[in-house]
């Protein structure tokens, strides 16, 4: 087991380096010159040369990459072109908001998906199952931004239960914890519904495969109640595929978070990225892409290790 973990971690290192290299290439093949953009009307050949030298843009590409990588490994992602702040501090301001959003949405989505999928599998092919399947299909096909709009329509405008955006009430100088929670409800709900639909479908089919196994019949014949059979005996084995699925769905989750942050004006990484893309703030863009790529690779690594940990049938060789 220990050797397996070490081998998997070592295997991830080329991927991590690859993410930095590919994002770096991506950001430098595009037309348009950040120096020209930064100087705007103040552009003169002399100023352009000075600024290019200050930003390190006069060095050959591979040197720029190596310098960037070396600094990044020390936690220094250079300065934003636009905000005149270290990129690291910009990201550290935005990161907690995105993490709250994504972590809460993932946990709630898993919980509901497991419950819905389990009950659906138990009553497979009944009217209930078919109705839920159709509803889930709609949620699955629904664009995140339209779902967000509908959620705001219903809960913020018609019912007036929750605020339509922001992280706290701007009129309140000292927002307390519950104010944050209150503003988090609708964004989390939106992101949760979009991820939940697909997972519930997986859970249903996984649970159906489990329910015909011999050990389920054994459990029943030993007199275990249906609730116990379903949620103690069957559940443990059926949730295993969701672990892998979670790792695989991370990139889509971050994409969903970007859209949700934009709709609810929620100042996370997605909104920061969107602003930076419009302003061509290369250091910020590069740092966010690399950061998300690294999180995804690590997420997949953790999912794989967890899977090996919880499923004793997996061999580590």
């Amino acid at each position, binding site marked *: 087991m220990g050797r397996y973990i070490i081998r998997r971690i070592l295997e991830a290192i*080329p*991927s991590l380096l*690859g*993410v930095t290299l*590919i*994002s770096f290439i*991506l*950001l430098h093949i*595009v*037309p*348009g010159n950040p120096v020209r953009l930064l100087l705007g009307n103040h552009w003169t050949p002399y100023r352009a040369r000075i600024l290019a030298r200050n930003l390190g843009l006069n060095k050959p590409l591979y040197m720029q990459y190596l310098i960037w990588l070396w600094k990044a490994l020390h936690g220094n992602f250079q300065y934003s072109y636009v905000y005149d702040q270290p990129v690291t501090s910009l990201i550290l301001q935005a990161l907690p908001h995105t993490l709250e959003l994504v972590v809460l949405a993932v946990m709630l989505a898993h919980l509901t998906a497991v419950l819905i999928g389990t009950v659906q599998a138990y009553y497979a092919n009944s009217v209930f199952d078919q109705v839920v399947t159709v509803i889930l*299909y*709609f949620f*699955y*096909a*629904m*664009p*995140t*931004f*339209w779902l967000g*709009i*509908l959620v*705001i*329509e219903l809960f913020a*405008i018609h019912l007036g239960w929750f605020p339509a955006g922001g992280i706290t009430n701007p009129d309140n100088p000292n927002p307390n914890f519950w104010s944050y929670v209150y503003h988090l409800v609708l964004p989390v709900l939106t992101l949760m519904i979009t991820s939940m639909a697909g997972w519930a479908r997986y859970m249903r089919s996984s649970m159906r495969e489990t329910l015909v196994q011999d050990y389920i019949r054994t459990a029943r014949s030993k007199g275990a109640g249906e609730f116990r059979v379903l949620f103690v005996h069957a559940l443990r084995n059926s949730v295993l595929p969701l672990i892998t699925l979670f790792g695989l769905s*991370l*990139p*889509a989750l*971050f*994409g969903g978070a*970007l*859209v949700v942050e*934009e*709709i609810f004006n929620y100042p996370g990484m997605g909104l920061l*990225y*969107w602003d930076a*893309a*419009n302003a*061509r703030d290369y250091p910020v*863009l590069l740092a*966010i*892409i690399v950061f*998300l*790529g690294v999180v*995804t*690779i690590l997420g*997949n690594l953790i999912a794989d290790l967890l899977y090996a940990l919880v499923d004793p049938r997996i061999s580590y060789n």
Partner: protein
Amino acid sequence: MQNPIVAEIEAAPAEDFSYQGRIWRRFWRSPLTIAGVAGLLFLVLFSFVGPLIYRVNPLTINLLHILQPPDAQFPLGTDDLGRNELARLMVGGQASLIVGFASAFVSMVFGTLYGMVAGLAGGWVDTVMMRVVDIILSIPALFILLFLDAVFKPNVALMVVILASTAWLGVARLVRAEVLTIKTRTYVEAARALGASQARIMRYYLFPNYLGTVLVAGTFSVADSILAIATLSFLGLGLPPPAPNWGSDLATAMNYMYQNAWWIIYPPGLAILLAELSINFVGDGLRQAFDTRLS
């Protein structure tokens, strides 16, 4: 005098037992597939034939009729500049559908070639090629698309390429996996023993065998591309204005939610939802028809 049994057999309608015939029948078996094809057909007619019948310019600004609810003159009302929403909905579908299908096609072609080369080459070439795919896949696609869109300010053709730049990855993975299993089959070995070239093996021995998988994956990627361009347009990018688009119409609608302008909030969203559902149903139908294990 002809044998009556022979005559009866000859008179019976010829059932198609060919491979294509079986696939064709399996495709139409599910009612959801029929619904999907119908929905897609409706959208195509609505977007491409609709503007020929309902001849209203979607770009005409009419400041006397701003945010007007549906009536006889404006069947779906008007937006914040008094533009006819029904006409915008029709024309807005054109770009979405063209870009969606075209980028799925480009990603299918490129992904197939890439996956086939990696699968056939094997060894370290395969390892490096697939590592590159894995790495690009670990960066959220929307972030790549958003960046390219913001930087290039694309027209329709460039938009197709941009969307395909992330869509081909999944196809390449699938094709490579298929090639790895198919290339060990005896008929491929026999062809190789008879002196068939790599190109000939790719074209006549491998390609027909995973065409089904590629088609299914391609169909789902049409849905992904349509969703992606709608999302980008909603985020204020996508194709440059003033061309109407379902996504950008929704972004406009968001500003008028408190005025309860339901006629510009629901129709564009429903159009995207219909496109997504229809294409997913067709994809499911193809999956059953080709009996692929793809999910």
